[in-house]
């Protein structure tokens, strides 16, 4: 290995650092006798901060160009860096938000932190995967950690059931994905995503080879749909969201979505752009079904976590509208606009989801789970500030300006209309109208109803500040969305 080769490997420095630091955190935890695990959590936060700085450095140093290292296994590009940065924020927020909740339930053990950090490592590997092999390794690392996290509350039947479902369905979807990958490998003879794209261009011209590719593609899309959580591969989401401890639900509902998005981009946009016509049709069906089922079923839920689970399904369907608007009749003019809209939607969604579960965690106390609709009744009386934060989050999820959620919807709808999918856009807005109802119901409960009991939720100060910052960030992004939109656009433009 020459010196220069060694230097190029430094582009994977954030991953390398995270692996080493997590091992250290694990050791530190052994010596920590503290109930609230202050030392462990502080070292985890420090690890994330260093990851953040390293990623910013690598991003700065790469000057926006793409580098494929480790013999074509690992890609370092702007989109990867941006997604990783948001992942750090999400994981760091998850740690901050869940400390009190987990401690009060005796679940704040060292494994929680370690598993979370290792799953983050898995996400980062997924995000930067340049080969089917790395992609799958990252996916499995992430998923296995998440299964264990969901089952963390081992005395709870609901949690165990959720973990079991998650594991079985997750394994099935991994199998589907793997089968799809093997088909593509069989057709193209390579595992490298960029080489797959080159071969597919050649193969797609011949009808027999094309059929073979599309056959593999179907399995890939099904596997992806499982991971992103869109209809009809959504069954695990409501159970896992409801069954897992709220802090874990928050983790499952945020950063892994970004990794799944990255997987979709790597496989479909980077790997099989030649088959865009085929996978766009599949995504259109998935998107429509998700928006319909997600929004309509969410209305019937009385459990907030379950409601947010269906809302996730609907949101992921909406996000797919961006992914499926990239290529129009073989023309890629709209691609950058559409994919960057989807990326923007994803990032905003993760911030909203983080905040919404954060408020639930904030309102939970020892012996009291804030998870049913009536548990937020009269929040405006007992705690007006966090009722306001939740109001911003709910209107943002519903896509009402001036919150960030509106611009996410605007960007995606604009991409769809540009691609000539006007009727799909009309269907999407009609379903999001239905969706507005259940978000409004939360606002109604908080503002118009009297509280069940007048106990005022009090979280730790750092938690409160972080949660407020989260809500205000969505308001601020609603007033000045340009910087993040520009970043997303650059991230997508430098993809190829």
């Amino acid at each position: 290995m020459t010196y220069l080769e060694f230097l190029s490997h430094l582009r994977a420095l954030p991953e390398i650092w995270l692996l080493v630091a997590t091992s250290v955190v694990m050791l530190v935890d052994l010596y920590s006798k503290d109930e609230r695990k202050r030392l462990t959590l502080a070292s985890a936060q420090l690890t994330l901060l260093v990851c953040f700085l390293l990623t910013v450095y690598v991003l700065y140093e790469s000057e926006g160009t793409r580098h494929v290292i480790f013999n074509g296994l690992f890609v370092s590009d702007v989109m990867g860096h941006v997604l990783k940065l948001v992942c750090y924020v999400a994981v760091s927020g998850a740690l901050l938000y869940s400390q009190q909740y987990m401690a009060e339930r005796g679940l704040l053990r060292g494994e929680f932190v370690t598993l979370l950090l290792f799953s983050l490592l898995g996400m980062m590997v997924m995000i930067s995967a340049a080969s089917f092999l790395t992609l799958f390794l990252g996916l499995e690392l992430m998923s296995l950690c998440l299964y264990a996290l969901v089952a963390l509350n081992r005395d709870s039947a609901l949690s165990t059931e959720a973990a079991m479902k998650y594991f079985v369905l997750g394994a099935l979807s991994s199998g589907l994905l793997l089968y799809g990958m093997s088909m593509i490998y069989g057709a193209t003879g390579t595992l490298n995503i960029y080489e797959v794209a080159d071969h597919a261009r050649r193969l797609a011209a011949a009808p027999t080879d094309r059929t073979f590719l599309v056959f593999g593609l179907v399995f890939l899309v099904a596997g992806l749909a499982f991971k992103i959580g869109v209809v009809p591969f959504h069954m695990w989401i409501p159970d896992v969201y409801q069954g897992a401890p709220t802090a874990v639900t928050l983790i499952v509902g945020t950063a892994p979505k970004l990794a799944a998005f990255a997987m979709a981009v790597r496989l479909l946009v980077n790997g099989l752009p030649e088959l865009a016509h085929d996978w766009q049709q599949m995504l259109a069906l998935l998107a429509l079904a998700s928006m319909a089922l997600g929004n309509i079923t969410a209305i019937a839920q009385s459990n907030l976590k379950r409601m947010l689970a269906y809302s996730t399904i609907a949101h992921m369907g909406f996000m797919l509208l961006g992914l499926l608007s990239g290529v129009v009749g073989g023309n890629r003019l709209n691609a950058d606009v559409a994919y960057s809209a989807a990326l923007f939607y994803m990032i905003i969604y993760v911030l909203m989801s983080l905040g919404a579960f954060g408020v639930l965690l904030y309102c939970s106390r020892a012996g009291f789970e804030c998870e049913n609709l009536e548990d937020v009744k009269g929040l405006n009386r007992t705690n007006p500030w966090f009722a306001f934060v939740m109001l911003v989050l709910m209107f943002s999820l519903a896509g009402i300006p001036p919150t960030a959620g509106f611009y996410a919807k605007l960007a995606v709808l604009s991409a769809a209309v540009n691609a000539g999918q006007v009727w799909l856009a009309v269907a999407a807005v009609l379903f999001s109208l239905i969706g507005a109802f259940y978000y409004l119901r939360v606002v109604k409960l908080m503002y118009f109803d009297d509280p069940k009991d007048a106990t005022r939720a009090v979280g730790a100060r750092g938690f409160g500040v972080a949660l407020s910052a989260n809500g205000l960030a969505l308001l601020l992004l609603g007033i000045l969305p340009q910087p993040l939109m520009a970043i997303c656009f650059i991230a997508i433009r430098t993809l190829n």
Partner: protein
Amino acid sequence: MLLTLAIWIPIVAGAAVLATGANEGGSQRAGLARWLALAGAVLGFLVTIPLYTGFDVQNAGFQFVERHLWIERFNIWYHLGVDGISLLFVLLNSFITILIVIAGWSTIDTRVGQYYGAFLLMSGILNGVFAALDAVLFYVFFEGVLIPMFIIIGIWGGPNRVYAAVKFFLYTLLGSLLMLVAMLYLYDKSGGSFAITDWHTLPIPLGVQKLLFFGFLFAFAVKVPMWPVHTWLPDAHTEAPTGGSVVLAAILLKLGAYGFVRFSLPILPDACRDLAWLMIALSLVAIAYIGLVTLVQTDMKRLIAYSSVSHMGFVTLGFFIFNAYGVEGGLVQMISHGFVSAAMFLCVGVLYDRMHTRMIGDYGGVVNTMPKFAAFMMLFAMANAGLPATSGFVGEFLVIMGAMQVSFWLALVAATTLIWGAAYTLWMYKRVIFGAVANSHVGELKDLNAREFAVLTALAVAVLAMGVYPRPFTEVMHGSVNGLLKHIAASKT
């Protein structure tokens, strides 16, 4: 700069009022919140006055224009400006805000900070709707109004407030979302521009124009509201607190009609001409049928709400007969209705604060105990019925003249409103105010206090001034209305 101030002064003041966290009416913080709100409202009104005095009536284009790049990625601009059509609404809105702050002074005693904060935020946002010249900016303000209004109806409203608030929100959201798709289509076709003025000159085939017309129609018809999508209005009005009803009637209803003038007419002139029959028919149904519905109402707020639907029918009728009388009459009617309906709701509010009932049957003989109030209400009832020398007359007369130019029968049906209007308003007035004292509660009523007197006087002056000498109001419109009519006359296909 003036328009920016007109938008952001109330919003900043509203945020400050919210930040006081005032809750109980008697507390010191509540006092602070009230004075802060009043200061914000007065300051907000003062900065709009130079808009009128500095307005060049010869210029049909947009004035006081501000343009800064806002979201570069989508070519969205922070683009503000007013013409003769929108100018008066900015003034009206800022003026009404002051009255609302004063009217709620002693009657709101729970969550005072949130009440005033919501109204001031809404005032700023509404100014934004009328001043925005970029479609996305317009949409952001147009939708943003929903949030404070939803909260106002839901927290301070009557017994059925939650139903009304949700109905209001979902109805208006349905319309707006379809409009959003229409806007995105225009964005795509205009080569990536959200500037409303660019869309005015964009050629669009007739079939597409019609589809877009319906996209916009849903948004605006719900807000106007036109028959048959008006059903949210009586519920929202009846359940809203007095201040909420005033803003709803005086300003929010104008958003829909304003949208027709700003978007539908100039952007889709061919579709508008082609579908004018539909709009005229819906307007006539609103005028005649809703006029009859109004007659049988037993709840005063509901009655005024239905009469608003009927009056707004006049506005849409005026716009879609495409002559200067009609369009100007419609605009004058909008301003006049802003004053008159605000005054009527405030009058009902005065009674409601004392008796806690809105039912006509619970009243009778109020004149015996509240003579000053009876006099004011007389004036506003007359204006609502369209009596000459009040503002209500000018707009209706102009629209009927315009309708006469188109067809005698059209004018005849439209003119029935003068009969219905007089019937339902005066009949209600008679049952509430005249006669013997109906019950002991009415016998104990106290007449207007100084604050109520001041608010009603301000509105009475406006109603009379506009009725006797409407020129200051109409002269600013002439240039822009003529420009608009010339624009509509030319085909864009």
